[in-house]
């Protein structure tokens, strides 16, 4: 096992923000840390990285306590951080230096990632034009001159510059347009293909489903659900039935005493107990002569599982009012 998180605990005064969190990454791949705002994801990540003192528990990397200063770790923080007024190139070289990457190597890697992330124009100002007094030299770009998305790209570059073994991405795709979302996804896929270990937190459940095999859902600091995503879904069974008919079929729903979860022009989502109940419902629809346009029975989505497990977002938001450490 490469990364083992055991019984991680964090308290602020009397308030417990992370309670007995344990999980592990056995093989290269992406592990998802999910939870509502204030659930303790960022605090857990900070403890894993050793930025924040923990009240209990341990984090092991290849059997040894994880020290982010010794292990090559890349981190993309949830709240993007760049110096607003310093030249971007200087910042990247500084971050690379802190990771022990030599200046020459850092320059090569910056060149590569600048091309890959399509931010060359911000890192390499055009050559001066004109001659003598008329020569116009463009100043190096600073972070406050960049859009949020481009700042995010520079931040991702900073996380990747040391070619990390373990990459922690806190909400990597938030705020990105579809084109850049695809760009980030392709980079994440490449890193996984290279055999890297990734921990990712995101509120975009479809992204998690796309990348992650194993997940932990946190609610108010506690792990309320964790394990292999496919097995979790299987455990729930095929309980989501999607039905669309040309005719109205409310009478059949009433006959089976089923609960309609959503009703859209694309059909109704109906909660069933399992395949048997769904089959009986379909039989009744057909015997009643209804024209079935769509009939689908599937496991709950991660989104549905998340909403069920993490509970009301409003409740958690209320719990994190005022100053906190998230």
């Amino acid at each position: 096992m490469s990364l083992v998180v055991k019984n991680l605990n964090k308290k602020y005064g009397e308030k417990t923000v992370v309670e007995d969190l344990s999980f592990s990454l056995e093989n290269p791949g992406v592990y998802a840390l999910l939870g509502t705002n204030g659930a303790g994801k960022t605090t857990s990540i900070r403890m894993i990285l050793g930025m924040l003192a923990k009240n209990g528990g341990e984090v092991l990397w290849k059997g040894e306590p994880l020290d982010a200063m010794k292990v090559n770790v890349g981190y993309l923080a949830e709240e993007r951080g760049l110096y607003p007024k310093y030249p971007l190139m200087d910042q990247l070289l500084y971050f690379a230096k802190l990771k022990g990457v030599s200046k020459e190597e850092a320059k090569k890697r910056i060149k590569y990632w600048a091309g890959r992330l399509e931010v060359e124009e911000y890192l390499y100002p055009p050559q001066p034009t004109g001659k003598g007094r008329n020569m116009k030299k463009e100043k190096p770009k600073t972070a406050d001159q960049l859009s949020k998305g481009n700042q995010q790209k520079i931040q991702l570059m900073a996380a990747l510059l040391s070619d990390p073994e373990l990459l922690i991405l806190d909400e990597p795709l938030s705020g990105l347009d579809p084109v850049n979302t695809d760009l980030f996804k392709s980079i994440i896929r490449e890193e996984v293909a290279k055999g890297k270990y990734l921990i990712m937190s995101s509120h975009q459940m479809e992204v998690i489903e796309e990348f992650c095999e194993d997940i932990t859902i946190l609610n108010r600091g506690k792990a309320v659900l964790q394990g292999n995503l496919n097995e979790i879904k299987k455990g729930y069974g095929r309980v989501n039935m999607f039905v669309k008919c040309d005719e109205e079929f409310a009478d059949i729903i009433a006959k089976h005493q089923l609960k309609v979860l959503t009703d859209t022009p694309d059909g109704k989502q109906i909660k069933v107990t399992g395949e048997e109940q769904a089959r009986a419902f379909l039989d009744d629809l057909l015997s009643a002569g209804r024209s079935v346009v769509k009939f689908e029975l599937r496991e709950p989505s991660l989104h549905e599982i998340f909403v069920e497990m993490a509970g009301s977002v409003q409740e958690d938001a209320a719990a994190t009012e005022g100053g906190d450490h998230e």
Partner: protein
Amino acid sequence: MNKHDYTGWKDVFRFSFEQGVKANAYKISLVIFALLVLLGVPFMGWLQNKGEKDLGATAVEKIFVYDETGLEIDYTGFATGERYQKLVIEKTPDKTYEENSKALEEAEKPVDILLKVTLEESGYFQLTFVKAVQAGFSDDDYEALTEDFGVYFDDAKREAIDVTPEQAVFISKPVSTGVEFAVVDENGNITIEAKDKTEGITQQEYGVLLAGIMVVMMIINLAGGQIANGIVTEKSTRVVEYLMINIRPMALIVGKILASLLLVVIQMAAIGVAFLGGKIISSNLFPPAAVQTGEEPGALDLFLEMMGKITPASLVICLAVILLGVLFFSIIAGLAGASVSKLDELAEGMKIYQLLLIVGCYIGIGVCIVEMIGGVNPLILEVLCMIPISAPFILPANLLLGKVSLWVGLVAIALLFLITVFMFSFTAKVYESMIFYNGKVLKLKDILQIAKNRRAEKKEGK
């Protein structure tokens, strides 16, 4: 704290220093300050010179001198040179001063000024000039004449009692008395223990002390401001999130403090060099009209004289006290920076820092004033020179002026070192909790509570 806590401070230092130097605000302020000083000093010299030269020959025609000193001074000797050669000076021993005053008011031209010269009971010569109502010369002319007359009188009185300028300088040296006690130690050896009794300071020494306080205040304030600003910027922009996985908070704060210190020292050095450059330009372009022998040295002369007398030990102690003082205040500034989440709340977070700085500075100014009035009790001065918040302001100049001994400096260093180490240790406990804190500005009691919680957490962890 261990070595690991400081790993990477050099990288932080280098980056913070490079970015500080590259910042337009720094470059512009450095150039503006240096230029202002470089050009300002010669300009002041020019103004002074211009004022002296433009006056030309005086419009004062006659001075009556009423001398009560009993010294045989030849006042007519003043009427020399282009400016005063037409001036008539008469002594009026036959009449009383009151009679002369009345005569002055009633007389028509050419009596312009009545001068009364007295030796006051408190031991100084008083020259009182009375300008006649009908006198037709300008106030500038009058003022220049009175100043020149004072200088002439100073020389003339020495000549009257047959003292050379060199002897006068020698005689006017300050007097310091010391009390020594013969003490028998445990082994029966007799040793002498001295107790110095310090006299008050001159106006020039006051100038040096005050300038010392101002320079140290500027260094501490600029360095502290930069550090607090840098920390809040990193906190509010969340850069600190990235930094903290690569370096420990202590390395971060140490690198920042040293970089800010170097930036401020460069700024101060540039201003100092510009000042000396300005002085050289000024003295070459506008040489002083007359350097009076026996005159008390100015603050700059005293400073230069003081620089010449500096011993390696006193220099090391002074630098160490200033450096430790800057470190001590910078750590407080760093904590103040970490206690706020947004730049616009920084002023509120810096209240305690500002208060300590003002208290330290005011103690320094207070000591200067009391020293000038009549001298501070040596014991009180020594204690104030040792207190960490006032030591950086008072000790260096007092040590260089010989007002306190080297051992006071050593004790001050020891105390400053201990409190700085304590502050570092305290900062190490609370900094990482504070650096991720987001919310209202933390008060002192909140910071102490964080430290208490950290101690409890540590115990719990064990």
